[in-house]
């Protein structure tokens, strides 16, 4: 037989193999929730509040009920009888509060788009017809929309049972902050940043099918999301079905980015309806509902100050962050993590001694805000890197030089930030130096300067960043949420010699299943095509957290590595008995057990498996072979594993139109051990473009009374191919010592760094024009013209 290059030991980990599970997506054979049709299935459509804040006076459903094909109609009172409300607070975010949230608004609506009535009919079209006939009479209440106005002592209270509209406040004070700012030799800069709301716009809307079987009291949720076991617990808690009888199945998921990991009243109501009607109920959000009801992201107003000493060393940073989260803290992850990450991560790349921060998380009558890709990171990086560029300009230093002086040294680990974050295995200096070479920083600066003389306005923006990945239980579990921070993997050998694996991390297109197959193929010495991967089904995969905070490779992958190694040891033990050889003299390659010395083939995995499964009589009775192994893994000793990187953007600004053209984008990222470079690079590229969307295009625009003004894809601008740059990606590899594989997460980097890089580049382009520093995202042409003082 001929061995291929992949039959060498350790040949898959690190190889950029294409994703085996992409083939069916390329042929239109995906299995998204809306593709599924179950027997007797009916369709749910929601009547939503047109007001940001209103009392519901009465609901008249008579005309809707009279329409042929309508199966049932439920309002908030109906749902309150079968769904218990939830409270989105974490106990370790001390002092956080949020009132109980019902699945459907009950008595009062708190944001435009909150579900009020659920109509169920034989087809979605009929349900939409009936929904249009539901008459709800509202008494509008004062809408509290501006996050700072919401904090005024005389502001109307969104929740009368609370004494203010404050959800949570956190203060940090470390080191001699006032002394650093008071130092007469210090360079001090101050700036106010405004970050608008945007949202995930997964191309597949939120989708769910509830399928309740009363004969066994079993509820199945066909789920478009990231955390099946979390949803299993949520459904059990709030629908009164025993947890073990709830099955959550996530097959193909058409984008998620954090949007689909939260608890949504409409989805829970559809599941409750399935239980009441004893038949499957499908709900698929339309795009208008997606904009109104998918969680929104960011929404911060930040005042920031920083001080530099005469040697160019950063001495202190002070932050005041007010963030608006809508009327409820979102369950079960809470809406406090976003702001918490902002105040935690500001300054993290730098050797900083003194830090003061105040965070206020505020209720408002807008769509709920919660965790979206790179939670808090883009805000923290844009603020800190904006301050760094301001300090560079104010002190007459080159922005790269100022970062060189202040970035944590690559030999300084382990170390900690003033906020108490613990760093290990990072490479800020190496990433910056590699970035400057990759982009040819000096040549780019020279080009920029030469073009300025010709009236062409280009700018360069740098960002150094950290990203929180591989989270430990300190994230959610410690705060009481039913969210696992460990993941499990099972590997088993079948009778044909193929390996089947399952894992509790999930796939939304990142390539999760591919890296799990690569790890397994590598350890088991089999071809990639002989590894079969299952994820996303609580009935079949080990218990675990799913995919969030970039944990697929670092946690799910490590569990897979350990499970595959355990299976390998089992196989070698059996082989040793069959071959009467010591297991340590044998290894696996090419689907065969071979001699470690010399590589002679001894027995195929297929023959070994058949001996165990069919002809056990040939084995000694004392041997009880197990050709299946499960291992779980969690990060210990650290709350999470930091990843780091550096990024640059090169832009041209047209001062006549305010339009920004993206000319180049470079990223150097350290994700530790790289399992599949192609997949890592594509995670970074996709993330960069989401970050560019936040920087330049995407904003949920609200009127003063809480009406979302641009809730269609034609009005809410998502980055398109024509306006995006090609991106150059490179790596520094510093494996994490918290695991054997050494992989860190790759999903946050692009989104974390790109907004700050683009903002710095735009301001670099505008600076010689005497423009005001632009500190509001998205940086629309109108805002750029305002900064230039030329807007009409």
């Amino acid at each position, binding site marked *: 037989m001929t061995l291929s290059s992949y039959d060498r030991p350790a040949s898959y980990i690190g190889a950029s193999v294409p994703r085996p599970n992409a083939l069916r997506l390329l042929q239109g054979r995906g299995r998204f929730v809306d593709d599924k049709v179950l027997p007797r299935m009916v369709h749910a459509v929601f009547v939503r509040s047109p007001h940001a804040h209103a009392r519901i006076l009465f609901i008249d459903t008579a005309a809707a009920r009279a329409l042929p094909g309508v199966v049932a109609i439920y309002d908030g009172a109906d749902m309150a009888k079968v769904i218990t409300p939830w409270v989105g607070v974490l106990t370790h975010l001390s002092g956080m509060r949020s009132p109980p949230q019902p699945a459907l608004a009950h008595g009062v609506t708190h944001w435009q788009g909150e579900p009020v009535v659920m109509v169920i009919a034989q087809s979605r*079209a009929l349900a939409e017809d009936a929904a249009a006939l539901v008459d709800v009479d509202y008494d509008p209440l004062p809408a509290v929309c501006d996050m700072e106005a919401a904090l005024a002592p005389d502001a109307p209270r969104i929740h009368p049972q609370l004494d203010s509209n404050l959800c949570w406040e956190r203060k940090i004070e470390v080191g001699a902050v006032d002394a650093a700012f008071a130092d007469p030799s210090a360079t001090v800069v101050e700036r106010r940043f405004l970050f608008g709301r945007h949202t995930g716009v*997964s*191309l597949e809307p939120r989708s769910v099918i509830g399928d309740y079987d009363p004969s066994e009291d079993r509820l199945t949720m066909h789920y478009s999301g990231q955390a099946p076991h979390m949803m299993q617990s949520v459904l059990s808690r709030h629908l009164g079905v025993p947890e073990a009888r709830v099955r959550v199945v996530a097959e193909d998921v058409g984008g998620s980015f954090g949007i689909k990991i939260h608890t949504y009243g409409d989805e829970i109501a559809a599941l409750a309806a399935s239980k009441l009607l004893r038949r499957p109920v499908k709900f698929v959000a339309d795009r208008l509902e997606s904009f109104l009801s998918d969680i929104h992201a960011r929404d911060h107003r930040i005042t920031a100050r920083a001080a530099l000493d005469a040697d160019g060393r950063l001495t202190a940073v002070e932050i005041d962050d007010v963030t608006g989260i809508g009327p409820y803290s979102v369950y079960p992850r809470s809406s406090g993590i976003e702001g918490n990450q902002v105040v935690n991560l500001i300054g993290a790349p730098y050797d900083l001694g003194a830090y003061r921060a105040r965070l206020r998380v505020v209720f408002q009558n807008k769509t709920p805000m919660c965790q979206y890709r790179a939670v808090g990171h883009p805000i923290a990086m844009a603020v800190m890197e904006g301050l760094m560029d301001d300090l560079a300009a104010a002190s007459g230093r080159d922005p790269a030089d100022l970062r060189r002086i202040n970035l944590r040294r690559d030999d300084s680990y382990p170390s900690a930030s003033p906020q108490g974050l613990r760093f290990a295995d990072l490479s800020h200096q190496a990433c910056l130096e590699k970035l400057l070479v990759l982009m040819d920083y000096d040549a780019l600066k020279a080009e920029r300067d030469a073009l300025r003389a010709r009236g062409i306005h280009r700018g360069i923006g740098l960002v150094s960043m950290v990203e929180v990945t591989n989270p430990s239980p300190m994230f959610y579990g410690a705060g009481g949420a039913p969210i696992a921070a460990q993941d499990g993997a099972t590997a088993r050998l079948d009778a044909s010699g193929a390996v089947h694996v399952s894992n509790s991390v999930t796939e939304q297109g990142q390539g999760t299943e591919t890296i799990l197959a690569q790890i397994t193929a590598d350890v088991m010495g089999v071809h990639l095509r002989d590894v079969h991967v299952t994820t996303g089904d609580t009935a079949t995969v080990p218990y675990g957290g799913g995919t969030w905070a970039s944990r697929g490779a670092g946690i799910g992958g490590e569990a897979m590595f350990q499970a595959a190694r355990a299976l390998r040891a089992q196989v070698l033990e059996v082989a040793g008995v069959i071959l009467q050889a010591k297991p340590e003299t044998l290894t696996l390659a090419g689907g065969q057990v071979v001699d470690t010395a010399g590589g002679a083939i001894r027995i195929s995995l297929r023959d070994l498996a058949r001996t165990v499964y069919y002809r056990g009589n040939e084995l000694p009775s004392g041997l009880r072979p197990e050709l299946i192994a499960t291992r779980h893994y969690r990060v210990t000793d650290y709350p999470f594993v930091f990843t780091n990187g550096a990024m640059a953007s090169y832009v041209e600004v047209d001062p006549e139109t305010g339009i920004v053209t993206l000319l180049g984008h470079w990223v150097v990222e350290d994700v530790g051990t790289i399992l599949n470079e192609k997949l890592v690079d594509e995670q970074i590229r996709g993330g960069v473009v989401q970050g560019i969307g936040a920087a330049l295009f995407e904003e949920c625009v609200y009127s003063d009374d809480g009406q979302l003004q641009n809730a269609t*894809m034609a009005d809410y601008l998502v980055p398109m*191919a024509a306006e995006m740059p090609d991106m150059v990606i490179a790596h520094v590899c510093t494996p994490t010592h918290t695991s054997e594989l050494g992989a860190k997460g790759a999903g946050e980097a692009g989104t974390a760094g790109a907004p700050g890089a683009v903002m710095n580049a735009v301001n670099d382009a505008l600076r010689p024009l005497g423009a005001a520093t632009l500190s509001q995202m998205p940086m629309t042409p109108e805002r750029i013209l305002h900064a230039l003082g030329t807007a009409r």
Partner: protein
Amino acid sequence: MSGSVTITLRLNGEDVTATVPARESLVDFVRERMGLTGSHVGCAHGVCGACTVRVDGLSVRGCLMLAAQADGASVDTVEGLTDSGAMADLQDAFHRHNAVQCGFCTPGMLVTATELLDRGGPVPDRAAIRDHISGNYCRCTGYQAIVDAIQHVAIARAAAKEDAA
């Protein structure tokens, strides 16, 4: 609102006759009545491109065309274009370049890209490719790998044509 229409069309090379509600969109028809779930509904506003199918050889938004309007037409979806092998090289390039992540936009993106590639003519540059696919949103990839894959096929097809000449 409730009127229905009987239509006959050639769907992925097969003759199909069906009675459909007059208001039913073409994409709902192929997905829900014909079981061709490869075409996706991302916005139902004609913006995102996930529902793009081929009607009489042209890319069409399946959410903006009524099934009734397809009477007498030849309609190809990702399933038919896959089975015929019409875009096998493009699918292979998408696979190797990792131009697909979640896969929700992919069928529409393939149909739109096939329209560009089937035009023949000079090899489109990256800007022309980016321009052509700008009516198809992808939220995962950032587009670069998609452009790489389309460009690869455009060059390969041009080279094959030259070899044949």
